């Protein structure tokens, strides 16, 4: 009984959590190495050791570092523009019943379309280059932010709005001081989703029309049949996406803490 209880306490500790996580990585890497050795064809499945070598090359090569920065720059620019646009769009739609009813069908239609599907029309409108890639990234971020902002505004407590009317707050004031602040937790849920979707969208766009970026690197590795490099690129993408998510969560809880009224942000 007490031994079981002790083991439970142990496993919930921070050290034990990290240890278990590492153990998982090691076991999977070992299994992978074994399967790769059995397969014997690095074109189909490169061994983890090959991937690590490719990874070192990728990170130390100044050219691929530029690729990494290009991808990050596109994600950040597209995500910021898309989030701001989504916030304004969502707040506008959420605040006016008529606008909401008018635009809701479009919103629900457009948000289900994969952002990458727009890459071809985008090149016709904006040319084959940066603006088209940004268009796709912005598209990926706009809808989750807009939809969640609309939900946030719909969830505002009626008494807050009545209080605003009773103290004589103008409609614009109500929007800025009541609706937007109380929608913040919802907006953040949308923005976090939007950030993840931006990373997905940028890779597709870079593969199709990019001249640089991690998506381009992965796609380009095909010309040399360099599967290890593809894996290394995917690994870098995953790590960078993960780090950005951590950064987002960190910024959210330091900058927007007060909008959560003591609740943990989801």
């Amino acid at each position, binding site marked *: 009984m007490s031994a079981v209880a002790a083991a439970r306490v142990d496993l919930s500790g921070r050290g034990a959590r990290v240890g278990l996580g590492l153990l998982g990585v090691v076991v999977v890497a070992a299994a992978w190495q074994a399967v790769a050795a059995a397969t014997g064809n690095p074109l189909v499945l490169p061994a983890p050791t090959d991937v690590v070598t490719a990874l070192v090359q990728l990170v130390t090569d100044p050219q691929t570092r530029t690729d990494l920065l290009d991808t990050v720059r596109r994600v950040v620019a597209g995500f910021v523009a898309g989030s701001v646009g989504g916030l304004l769009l969502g707040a506008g739609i959420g605040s006016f019943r008529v606008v909401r009813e008018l635009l809701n069908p479009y919103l629900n239609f457009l948000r289900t379309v994969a952002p990458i599907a727009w890459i071809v029309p985008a090149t016709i409108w904006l040319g084959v280059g940066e603006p088209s890639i940004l268009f796709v990234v912005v598209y990926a971020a706009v809808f989750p932010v807009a939809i969640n902002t609309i939900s946030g505004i719909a969830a505002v407590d009626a008494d807050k709005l009545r209080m605003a009317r*009773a103290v004589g707050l103008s409609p614009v004031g109500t929007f800025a001081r009541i609706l937007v602040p109380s929608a913040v937790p919802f907006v953040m849920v949308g923005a976090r989703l939007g950030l993840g979707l931006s990373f997905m969208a940028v890779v597709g766009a870079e593969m199709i029309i990019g001249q640089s970026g991690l998506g381009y690197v992965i796609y380009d590795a095909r010309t040399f049949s360099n599967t290890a490099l593809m894996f290394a690129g995917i690994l870098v993408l995953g790590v960078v996406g993960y780090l950005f998510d951590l950064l987002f969560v960190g910024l959210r809880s330091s900058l927007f803490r*007060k909008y959560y009224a003591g609740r943990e942000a989801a």
Partner: protein
Amino acid sequence: MTGQPDVQTVPPLLEVSGVSYSYKPSLPPVMEGIDLSIRSGEFFVLLGPSGCGKTTILNQVAGFEKPTTGTISLKGEKITGPAPDRAVVFQGHESLLGWLTVRQNVEFPLKVAGVGTGERRARAQKVLELVELAPQADKFPHELSGGMKQRVQIARGLVTDSRMILMDEPFGALDAQTRGTLQAELSDIWERERRTVLFITHDIAEAVILADRVGVMSSGPRAYLHSIVPIDLPRPRRRTAEFNEYIDLLEATVSAAKARRPLETGTVAA
């Protein structure tokens, strides 16, 4: 003008005349034919069973809803919508802004009214001290107890020089002890400030503790104002024999109102 103005000739601050309200034309009115005058500086309590339409009346006085028939006027002017001359204290605490500190919440109506920072600070500090919340001024609402949150709302209601404060069962969700403390505090604050109050409750003792006059509602639908009972007791009000007589009187009135019949004389030894 000579001598004291006659109470009868001073126009009431709030005048409710012939007010009925239906949420839908197909539904019977929640209440009908409500006539009511509240004098300036008076603490008026509206007492009635839950569901009789007390909140509905308050919402019309606040201007959130318009009467289906009849009119409500403040200082002779018809009420057409909410305005800062009527502060509202809501039943729950959802109207507090969770992203603002207690002080910022209390300053909010002043900020909206364009009052400068210095005066805003000073006035908020004064009412925070009045409701004994000064030590909590820089906390956020979620860090406070239910009773403290209602004090923040009361402070926010007092901070402007609004003619009236409308309170919708502000202590309804609190435990008995906290409720008792806040009732005593409110009575005390009112004595000092002499703001006109329309206070809603379904609690008879609360009405006796707070009111100058109690309006007793019948039950709904088609609720009406059954009678108005003046409470002539010195403040602070303690549980004296006289206090208990008022409780008995109001209990009898409330039962009569529920049965929609006049109060039979002789039922209460007064």
